[in-house]
């Protein structure tokens, strides 16, 4: 069996496992939370000025919340088997419809952030790695450490103050226009770029000190040719593997950044769903996020293997 097929088969099994674990865990966690679900849902639907015992009772009857956890869990699993995520307990809309809108917004944000970070981080890292120990290298270390240490919440506000309020280049927050995407994406990208710059720098420095680099130079290739034909491949493998890990960071960052910038993403949706005890939304969102991780990791695995196929031959 080829590597790609083995990977896919393994990941498919993993996806099924993740779906089951996420489903069971999110259901159990929502059940274990304190407070009466009917009251929480009533407050979410009608606002806290109107939440009352009467409305909670109406919600309880409408959603059949007294049916018991086993019945509700069974219903959800049966729905899931038919690829139906159910309806939100708060808005009454199909969960899938809500997630599709919000996941789309999050993916858009994450993709642009990742793209921006790749434009910023690795080139700076390569430049620093070529002159490891130099002034630029040391300055980059400080800058990267600082950017990594600043909470995204603060970074986002600083960017709004500088780019939107002072320079009036970009809208401060909102959603709907392409220009709204830049600031939240940049907030995420700077943190990611700080890390990828370090990875690229270390990989570049290691390559620059390697016999392969010396040999390429001996062949008479120029610095640029060495970098282009040999260096980039050497850097790409660790960088890509690291990117895979960064998706976790990205998902976490998206939650914070979406709140600051009023971005209608899945992180925002998950927080609200947990707060509102909207069980189908929590389950649906967690499931989609879990499966996205599996999918992304699969893609990264395949890409890394393509860039660095050595182990397979061995």
């Amino acid at each position, binding site marked *: 069996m080829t590597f790609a097929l083995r990977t896919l088969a393994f990941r498919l099994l993993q996806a099924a496992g993740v779906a089951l674990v996420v489903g069971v865990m999110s259901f159990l966690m929502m059940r274990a939370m*304190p*407070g*009466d679900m009917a*009251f*929480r849902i*009533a*407050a*979410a*639907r*009608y*606002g*806290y*000025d*109107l*939440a*009352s*015992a009467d*409305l*909670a009772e*109406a919600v309880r009857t409408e959603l059949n919340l007294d049916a018991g956890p086993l019945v509700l869990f069974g219903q959800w699993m049966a729905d899931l088997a038919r690829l139906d995520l159910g309806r939100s307990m*708060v*808005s*009454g*809309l199909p969960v899938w419809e*809500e997630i599709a*809108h919000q996941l789309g917004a999050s993916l858009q944000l994450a993709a642009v952030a990742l793209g*921006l970070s790749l*434009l*910023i*981080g690795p*080139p*700076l890292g390569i*430049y620093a790695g070529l002159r490891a120990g130099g002034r630029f290298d040391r300055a980059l270390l400080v800058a990267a450490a600082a950017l990594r240490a600043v909470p995204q919440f603060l970074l986002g*506000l600083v960017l*709004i*103050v500088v780019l*939107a*309020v002072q320079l*009036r*280049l*970009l*809208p*401060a*927050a*909102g*959603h*709907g*226009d*392409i*220009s709204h995407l*830049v600031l939240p994406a940049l907030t995420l990208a700077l943190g990611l770029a700080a890390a990828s710059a370090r990875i690229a720098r270390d990989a570049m420095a290691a390559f620059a000190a390697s016999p392969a680099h010396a040999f390429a130079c001996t062949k008479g290739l120029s610095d640029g040719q060495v970098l282009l034909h040999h260096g980039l491949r050497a850097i790409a493998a660790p960088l890509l593997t690291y990117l895979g890990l960064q998706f976790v960071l990205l998902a976490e960052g998206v939650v914070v950044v979406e*709140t*600051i*910038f*009023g971005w*209608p993403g899945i992180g*925002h*949706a998950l927080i*609200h769903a947990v*707060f509102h005890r909207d069980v189908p939304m929590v389950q649906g969102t967690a499931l989609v996020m879990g499966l996205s991780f599996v999918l992304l990791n699969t893609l990264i695995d395949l890409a890394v293997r393509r860039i660095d196929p050595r182990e397979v031959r061995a």
Partner: protein
Amino acid sequence: MLSRLSLAALIAALPALPALADPATLAIAAPFEIKAADPLLSGDIFLKLDVMETLVNSDATGALLPGLADRWSVSEDGLSWRFHIRPGVTFHDASPLTAEAAAAALTWSWKKEGILAKAPVAAITAEGEEVVITLKTAFAALPAFLAEYRTGILAPAAYGADGTVTALIGTGAFRVTVLEPPLRLEAVRFDGYWGGPAKLEAIHYAGVSRAETRALMAESGDAGLVVNLDPASVTRLASVKTVTVHSVSLPRVLLLKLNAAAPFFDTVAERRALSLAIDRAGLAQAVLRYPAAATQMFPPAAGAWHDPALAPLGYDPEAAKAAFAAAGWVPGPDGILQHDGQPFAVELLTYPDRPELPLTAAVLDQMLREVGIAVTINSTNSSEIPAKHAAGTLQMALFARNFALVPDPIGTLMQDYAPTGDWGAMGWDNPAFTAAVRKIAAEGGTAAEKAALSATLQADLPVVPIAWYQQTAAVSNSVKGIVIDPYERTFGLKSAEIVQ
């Protein structure tokens, strides 16, 4: 090098991105999230944005005005109300507003636990050009109820067979073009509006939950109208030349709910002693940052319900200690009051949705500790308050209560104090008060009758008023005609305009 180039390219491309603000479009940022197209869930937003309207309107003093109903009348026995539908009104889908359409919309609101479910409604029908609401018992506050957002009127085509709202088709001055819950709504001027077309061409609504972000949107000019500012941002925006901060006193009150059936609060003397231990002026200045200490339950915005002659609630910790001592609560060895060996230790429930609440709870904790009360703060989901009320386990709760859910506090009083309610009195029963509230709800009341009820609340203190709220908004100086409505029904968008 590559990165510097790409950054430079990025920055160079920025001004070429689609415009930040269209000159005839007003951008609005507020914390309210859109849940769905149903007026029951998000009608408050649709009403404020002039997308949807109600049969009855109200002005800034809470007085009722004609809305989609241009006049109304009630039968002699008070059991049959006739609302005449304004002629010539069309919905955004070009269908006409008829009595049938209005009756159908109201019926869905009533059946789906809207505010009409709280009124003694027997039937809602259409007769000719009139909507006829038949009641089981007389109810004078019915027109005020019909000004509430949950009774917003949508076109027949907006409802599915089971009453599910599938589209937002109202009669307002703006027609919705984009509705993307939870954070986005866009609408354009509806040229067929019965009140004449609006001056603004379009409105863009953004739900932005963080107050800091909203304030920055006002400062950067991204939003011409920003609603609900945090106290720190109000101070900051005061020095920004391009925006003006407006604030208006609301009929919303920060209240301390007490379980009057608990041994700590079962006498008037104990409740008054507790009230004396609270330094309202200091608290309002420190936490809310505006002078909003409540001297009585109703703020001046509540019209006749506010009685300027009423002796204000005071602050005197020594008198509070003496009053507790007289009621049998004496300090134990740890300084905590005791009565028959029971320490005065109570749980204070609150919720963080309003950022000032946990802060206020912490300040109250300190003030009450001064007189020997041990408070445990539980900042949780707001729904715990009605839940623990129902279970009878609530001791104290801190929350903000809107007395203008309908533009007449009688609706809220009836739900909360006649005799008890989730967001009002607990374990308190004053039959005379209950009877008076029911009478005013049924027949209407004079200013003197309303003031008498306020005096009873002041004397009995079933709940302890702490502070009166102010609504704050930042409005760009290029936007004219914005209204900050104490009853939170409108922003005045249908007559607002952008001037350069």
